[in-house]
């Protein structure tokens, strides 16, 4: 093993070789009937690792996320909010209120391994395309029902939910921010995203079970319950001491020092929980004696709130006139953690993230150069990948209905005329870019 570790890892994970490697979920088909973020990400994450995802939308408007875009401004007639949750999917428009639409949908479900939906509890059962109906035709199906409050229980019936409902009811907002200040929303749709990850993880577990037994199953996932799971020591402390957790600002109550620091050109996060890291920080501060101060010498004494506050005051003062890069460099040198509070531009321009594919660039046939956050974990043998960007409503109707259901172009046309199968509305968010529309306007009747 003469090759240096980092030369070896560079080759092992080389971004340029990703498309030459296999995909873990190749051959798995996911059918989704979802909107906004929770449901679409459940399917999207599986797609990133090789599953084929067929996204059914109700034409002509489709997924509500097609209309959630910053400052309500569209880009090439697309919502920026729709891209991060829909990669490499096949977009099909089917009217599920029409009996023929239901039939088409059931045929797709019969050919799928996984089905993901995020309607309010019981909706699809009422439409007769729920778990009880679909599993009759396909007992191997893994049915994932995403929701705000679950499929059963007092809050489950008739109550709408969004990401921020989950943030609110879970207690997450209640433990975030500064004491005495109005509550704030997380800057991202964290309950949806984390929920999508939790739901897709359980789906993989179900797939593993199915590979051994042939049995599909039903998964009831509620995004509020995902966030409750993520609230670390909140509940166990309540159980042992009765203490109700509240907001504590940016400092970490369990790891000291750990806080955000204002510096000359922005903010950094700093953490030095282990005693040797703290000693390094004291050296960086030019005050090695601080590490021997009886108030600070061990993590256990630093965790005492008065000591923590005293220490953090010293650290804040020290950091105030330093730069972000200077502080990060001191962390590297002295072995404590210090990282910038990054914004979108920082990440977009970060060579490290580009090389790792954490910022993922590709060339989409419809939208041109795309830059997005790439697959999160990096796998050496079966790396995740993004192939193409989200497409307008019904973009892949022919592709899917012909390849999966064997329909002829003529039959698809009939279904389109009957409005069972449909395409995009003439509306930004649903339709293709103007350039494309101009180039593809059909000449007027000439047969």
């Amino acid at each position, binding site marked *: 093993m003469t090759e240096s570790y980092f030369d070896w890892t560079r080759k092992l*994970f080389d971004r340029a070789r990703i498309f030459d490697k296999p995909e873990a979920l190749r051959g798995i088909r996911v059918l989704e009937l979802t909107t906004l973020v929770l449901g679409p990400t459940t399917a999207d994450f599986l797609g990133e690792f090789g599953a084929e995802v067929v996204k059914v939308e109700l034409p002509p408007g489709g997924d509500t996320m097609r*209309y959630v875009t*910053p*400052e*309500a401004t569209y880009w090439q007639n697309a919502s*920026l909010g729709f891209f*991060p949750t829909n990669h490499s999917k096949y977009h099909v428009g089917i009217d599920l209120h029409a009996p023929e639409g239901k039939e088409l949908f059931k045929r797709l479900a019969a050919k799928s391994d996984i089905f993901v939906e995020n309607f309010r509890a019981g909706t699809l059962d*009422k439409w007769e395309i729920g778990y009880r*109906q679909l599993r009759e035709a396909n007992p191997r199906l893994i049915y994932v029902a995403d929701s705000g409050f679950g*499929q*059963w*229980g007092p809050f489950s019936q008739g109550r709408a939910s969004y990401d921020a*409902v989950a943030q*609110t*009811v*879970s207690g997450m*907002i*209640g*433990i*975030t*921010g*500064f004491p005495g200040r*109005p509550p*704030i*929303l997380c*800057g991202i749709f964290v309950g949806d*995203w984390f929920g999508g*990850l939790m739901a897709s993880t*359980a789906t*993989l*577990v179900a797939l593993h079970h199915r590979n051994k037994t042939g049995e599909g199953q*039903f*998964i009831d996932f509620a995004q509020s319950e995902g966030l*409750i*799971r993520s609230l670390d*020591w909140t*509940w166990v402390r*309540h*159980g042992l001491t009765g203490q109700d957790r*509240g907001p504590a600002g940016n400092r970490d109550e369990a790891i000291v020092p750990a806080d955000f620091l204002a510096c000359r050109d922005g903010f950094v*996060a*700093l*953490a030095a*929980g282990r005693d040797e890291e703290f000693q390094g920080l004291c050296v960086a501060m030019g005050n090695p004696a601080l590490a021997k101060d009886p108030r600070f010498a061990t993590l256990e*004494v630093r965790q005492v709130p008065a000591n923590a506050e005293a220490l953090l005051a010293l650290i804040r003062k020290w950091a105030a006139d330093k730069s972000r890069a200077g502080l990060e460099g001191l962390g*590297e040198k002295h*072995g404590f953690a210090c990282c*910038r*509070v*990054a*914004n979108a531009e920082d*990440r977009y321009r970060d060579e490290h993230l580009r090389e790792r594919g*954490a910022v993922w660039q590709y060339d989409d046939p419809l939208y041109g150069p*795309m830059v997005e*956050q790439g*697959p*999160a*974990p990096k*796998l050496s043998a*079966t790396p995740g990948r993004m192939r193409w960007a989200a497409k307008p409503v019904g973009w892949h109707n022919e592709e899917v209905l012909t390849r999966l259901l064997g329909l002829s172009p003529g039959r698809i046309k009939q279904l389109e005329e009957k409005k069972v199968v449909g395409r995009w509305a003439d509306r930004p968010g649903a339709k293709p870019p103007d350039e494309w529309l101009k180039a593809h306007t059909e000449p007027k009747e000439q047969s």
Partner: protein
Amino acid sequence: MTSEPHSWPRYAKEITDPALAHEKPEALDDLRVLDASSGNFAALFASSILAEFGAEVIRLEPPGGDVARLFSPQGVKHRGTGLAYLVEARNKRHITLNLDLPAGRELFARLARHVDVVIESAKPGQMDAWGVGYRQLSAANPRLIYLAFSTYGQFGPRAASPIPDYDITDQALSGTPYTTGEPAGEGTPESSVPTRQGNWIAWYIGGGWGAFAALTAVIWRATSGQGQFIDCSPAEAEMRFTDYDVHWYHAARRTRERLGALNVSVFPYTLIKTKDSYSFIAGFSDINWAGLTNIIQRPDLKERFPTTKTRIGESKLLHRELEGWAANLTSQEVLDRVQDYVANKRGPGTVASARLNRPSDTLAESHWWERGVFEKIEDPDYGELLLQAPPWKMSRTPPRIKWACRPVGADNEMVYLKYLGLGRERLRTLKAEGVL
């Protein structure tokens, strides 16, 4: 089969009630995991997920215990262990091993031959330099799945960084805090800053992605017979969740900024002050906005602000209007009015609302207890503990908590005997030598 819509919740409960989980099989009971991470709750959450689904997880700590047992609010301990660790030690066997010593590393390599997944959070290159990284372990066990957590990852220009991995620095790099918090000048000087989530969200997201990745690797291994190396940065894990921030910069060179209780894309999707607390309220699509203006009996607002664009443009004014309406209502009354409209279909549109919960409020709601979201565990070593249960309800292979935690090294005898044939005398010697 004919459908009976009214019985859906009953049926769904019947097939997924976690109270019956112990009667059903575990999906991952064919997997063995060795978690050798240090002070890292991303790694611990990853192994918790696998353990909840039935994997045998062997948690390896240095003699004396992992520093993760010390990460606790105000340093509070319960029977010698910090509170955060009590949550993420579930269903795990606990052994000790000193990886600083060559003899400890040799035992580690031998244990790694017997497992499907190794988890670690050492500085990138550290395990390799010790001769127990993926390169060396996979030579003896090609089916091994090796999951490593670090802030900057195992490759790339900053991979050799020696910084330890923490939630707060992962959150900072992810981009989420930059867009979270009160805008500059709107709150106090202390509070108008980028704001982190109060919980260890980056660690939990990182751990979730780690478990997800390991499971994809398990599925692929079933057909290929090959293991692999998984490089998981909790910072990048959370980055994947930052909505359209990078897209917006790419498309328009715009950087998303902090908006407190507002959202840059839609209105209303916000928190409002009520008579007794705060409430979240949403009705942002045009039809749902129509519903909300019906509920608050302000059709004039629908007329004046008919589109998302017009509502975002005046979101501060509209926020004040909503707070004016809620000023004489409790959060429960806000929710009751919303539910009366939605559940009885009194008009078009769907509106969502929720009362802002402190954790004690959540614990007081029967919904979560009925669904088994919280459990009071009677742990043989740690007594009665209130824990958040696994968040999934599954019909065939539900997850479960079997026990909460084990003392440091409590399973040394069982694990070292079972996998390496080391008896009590040998363990005594190793302990005396500081290896265990």
